[in-house]
């Protein structure tokens, strides 16, 4: 198939998205149903044409069409088919096309699953999504065409994909991440539509909640997969590096987490409306900012795309237009709430507000840390370097506080909570988490990484607070489940009676506890040894003995590898045999370290072979990583919680009439009357 056809279909998709951005919106403002009816077909058409373009690019990779510059730069005939497939999004142009494909996919999903929403709302939401699509389609067509040809001098073979990217991680990580980033455009579109038509009420919150939650779930998965990938592929066993690109994904995640919680308040109580809308705009803006930081080259990162100022300028313009336009709209249309406190100081509203304050503080910290090189440059403080220590020092206390706050807030009630009630609820989590934290910190401190001989000298305050926060959060969550599931018809009946969104929340919070626990334990009690080893040598790390049994060679599809065999024992009993590799990629003349990992629920054992230090010895990194899996399993649990929550019955909207009735009811009990005084 001709690659140029891909370009043509992208242009057709652009035309459709322009129509989508204009026609249904105009129809909704002039109350013409015939124009609004274009929204769904245009969404579908846009998706189909973008999908065809994506298919054409994929095909070019599959058949090794090196006349396409993007294919020639990111593939090679020796690569196995699944890496050729994932190489489609292994570079800037293709990943942008994936981004656009997902955007149109989300648009189509909104068009499909919003049959019961008021047509004005649907038209406006889809129009806003169309506007976003116009921006990105222009971006790809004008600055980053993936279908550019190398004619007439077609290279005989491709330059190969960066070996770091030739991995299962590339197949799954970017799609998940982009699903998250792009998914927040739906929450954004709902917010903008609500601002346009003045319908900022509980019903609006209920409609945008599932979309926000599912996008957040994907982003959570994407980030966790990225962390896991870095852990086993980069070869040095860390799981989070505070790299600008990682931070770029964390920013919308934190903001999206705040948005989910704030939406809950808006749905249930009809308050915080202005704030929720602002968060929806912010979350999407941070997704765009991430794209800008990664693709413009303003910040140096280990894994940023090739930098290009024209792309940066275009993205910045896109970011500026969407953010400034939406914030201006916000300034004119957001409801001004005349505060009459309708909730007490210990109400659930207040706890969720504090949650948002903490999350925003965390977000700002990460943002400042990420763009610090720019700030330093701007104020000509070129001498300051900032990195992991800054983030660890500032982010950890907030994470601990979030966990502790969660454990209290979970018991609070809407409007007001009785102090005595709250204190009584705190007894079990306080006692249990203190016991757990002391036990874990003292046992691990004295067995795993003793720093001194005295029993208390191995007590680490940071580890203590981390474990305390995690267990506090977990115990409180479980206690809440226990309390709520009490029933005359038995526990099982009580458990069954709880809604899916309740269980979603429980999973999310338990997941958070797992992440905090895992991060604390692995960072405080992980053991890492760098030793020189040759075949026959043994070394010890923690309680484990490592024997370098032998060394061999192996041929891969496009690499040759030196493979070490390591036998690991504990107290003389065999634990595992690991085969770390050093791969030499033929085409790119690159050497990659492939770690050998024995994964376990409670600990990982990690062996990586680095440089050969002599003809028969290597620098070897041995690691014992307790609970490292919990960071990813916790994230997985959080994402599952999100997906479970959206399966809740109340999101299956019945019909518009009940919706309106409900909206009216919550509007009157919530913030006192209809929210927006139009044009005020």
């Amino acid at each position, binding site marked *: 198939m001709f690659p140029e056809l891909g370009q043509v279909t992208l242009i057709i998709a652009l035309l459709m998205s322009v129509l989508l951005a204009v026609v249904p919106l105009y129809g909704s403002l002039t109350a013409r149903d015939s124009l609004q009816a274009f929204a769904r077909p245009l969404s579908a058409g846009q998706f189909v044409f973008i999908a065809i373009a994506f298919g054409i690019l994929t095909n070019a990779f599959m058949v090794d069409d090196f006349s396409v510059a993007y294919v020639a730069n990111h593939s090679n005939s020796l690569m196995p088919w699944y890496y050729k497939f994932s190489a489609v999004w292994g570079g800037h142009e293709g990943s942008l096309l994936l981004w656009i494909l997902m955007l149109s996919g989300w648009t189509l999903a909104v068009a499909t699953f919003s049959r019961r929403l008021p047509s004005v709302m649907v038209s406006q939401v889809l129009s806003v999504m169309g506007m976003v699509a116009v921006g990105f389609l222009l971006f790809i067509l004008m600055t980053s065409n993936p279908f550019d040809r190398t004619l007439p001098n077609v290279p005989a073979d491709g330059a190969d994909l960066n070996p770091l990217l030739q991995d299962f991680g590339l197949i799954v990580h970017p799609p998940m991440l982009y699903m998250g980033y792009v998914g927040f455009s739906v929450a954004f579109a709902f917010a903008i539509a609500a601002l346009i038509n003045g319908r900022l009420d509980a019903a609006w919150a209920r409609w945008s909640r599932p979309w926000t939650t599912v996008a957040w779930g994907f982003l959570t998965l994407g980030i966790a997969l990225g962390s896991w990938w870095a852990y086993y592929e980069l070869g040095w066993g860390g799981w989070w590096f505070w790299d600008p690109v990682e931070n770029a994904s964390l920013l919308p995640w934190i903001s999206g987490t705040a948005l989910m919680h704030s939406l809950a308040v808006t749905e249930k109580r009809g308050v915080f409306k202005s704030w929720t809308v602002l968060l929806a705009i912010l979350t999407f803006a941070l997704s765009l900012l991430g794209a800008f930081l990664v693709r413009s080259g*303003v910040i140096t990162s*280990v894994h940023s795309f090739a930098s290009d100022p024209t792309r940066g300028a275009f993205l910045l313009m896109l970011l500026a237009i969407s953010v400034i336009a939406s914030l201006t709209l916000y300034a004119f249309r957001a409801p001004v709430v005349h505060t009459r406190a309708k909730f007490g100081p210990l109400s659930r509203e207040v706890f969720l507000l504090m949650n948002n304050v903490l999350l925003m503080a965390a977000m700002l910290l990460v943002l400042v840390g990420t763009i610090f090189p*720019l700030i330093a440059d701007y104020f000509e403080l070129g001498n300051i370097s900032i990195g992991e220590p800054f983030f660890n020092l500032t982010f950890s206390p907030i994470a601990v506080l979030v966990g502790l706050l969660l454990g209290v807030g979970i018991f609070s009630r809407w409007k007001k909570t009785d102090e005595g009630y709250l204190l009584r609820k705190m007894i079990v989590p306080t006692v249990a988490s203190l016991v757990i934290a002391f036990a874990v910190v003292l046992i691990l401190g004295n067995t795993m990484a003793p720093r001194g001989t005295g029993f208390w000298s191995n007590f680490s305050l940071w580890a203590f607070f981390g474990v305390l926060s995690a267990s506090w959060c977990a115990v409180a969550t479980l206690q809440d489940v226990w309390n709520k599931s009490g029933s005359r018809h038995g526990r099982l009946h009580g458990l069954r009676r709880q809604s899916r969104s309740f269980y979603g929340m429980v999973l999310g919070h338990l997941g958070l506890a797992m992440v905090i626990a895992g991060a604390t334990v692995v960072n405080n009690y992980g053991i890492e040894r760098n030793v020189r080893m040759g075949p026959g040598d043994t070394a010890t790390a923690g309680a484990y003995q490592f024997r370098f049994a032998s060394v061999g060679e192996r041929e891969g599809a496009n690499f040759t590898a030196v493979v070490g065999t390591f036998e690991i024992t504990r107290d003389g009993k065999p634990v595992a045999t690991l085969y770390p590799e050093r791969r030499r990629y033929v085409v790119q003349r690159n050497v990659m370290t492939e770690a050998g990992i024995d994964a376990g629920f409670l600990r990982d054992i990690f062996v990586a072979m680095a440089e050969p*230090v002599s003809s028969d010895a290597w620098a070897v990194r041995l690691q014992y990583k307790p609970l490292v899996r919990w960071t990813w399993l916790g994230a997985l649990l959080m994402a599952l919680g999100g997906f479970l929550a959206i399966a809740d019955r109340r999101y299956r909207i019945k019909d518009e009439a009940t919706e309106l009735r409900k909206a009216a009811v919550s509007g009157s009990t919530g913030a006192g009357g209809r929210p927006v005084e139009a044009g005020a």
Partner: protein
Amino acid sequence: MKRALLFLPVVIAVAFGIFLYTGLGKDPQELDSALIGKPVPAFELANLKHPDRTLTPEVFQGQVSLLNVWGTWCPACRDEHDDLIWLAEEKGIPVIGLNYKDNRDQALRWLQDLGDPYQITLFDPQGKLGFDLGVYGAPETYVIDKQGIVRYRHVGVVNPEVWEEKLGPVVRRYQQEGS
């Protein structure tokens, strides 16, 4: 009054946008150093491997060398390490290390584990020379000519591409000069 407050986000966003825009032109990969064309600032630093020996800018005399700023706290430095070894061993380029804001034991272990591409490594735990050079973050690599004059600055990792396109031509130009 409250309505006016709602304009705050858009004002912040505009300010932030302008700020990002000014950052755009300045690609950190190609930051010019104020020192280009000037001698390496005076320093007296310990040799990483021999704490008792003091090094001065004389180490740069008589050869065109690369000054590579690194630290064990910097993951990107690990990325470029193989390529520095390749430069030192295969291309025979003298590389002088500046161990920046680091810990001596960790730095020595790093070199022992990963191999040592450096002819000499300057140990700069307080970042004194880094400050004078205007180091932006690790890794950074400078081309220093035979007279000890800074000729080029590269921010970010060194890899074969960067060598071929950026550092290599500068090094070759100054190697030919006066030989």
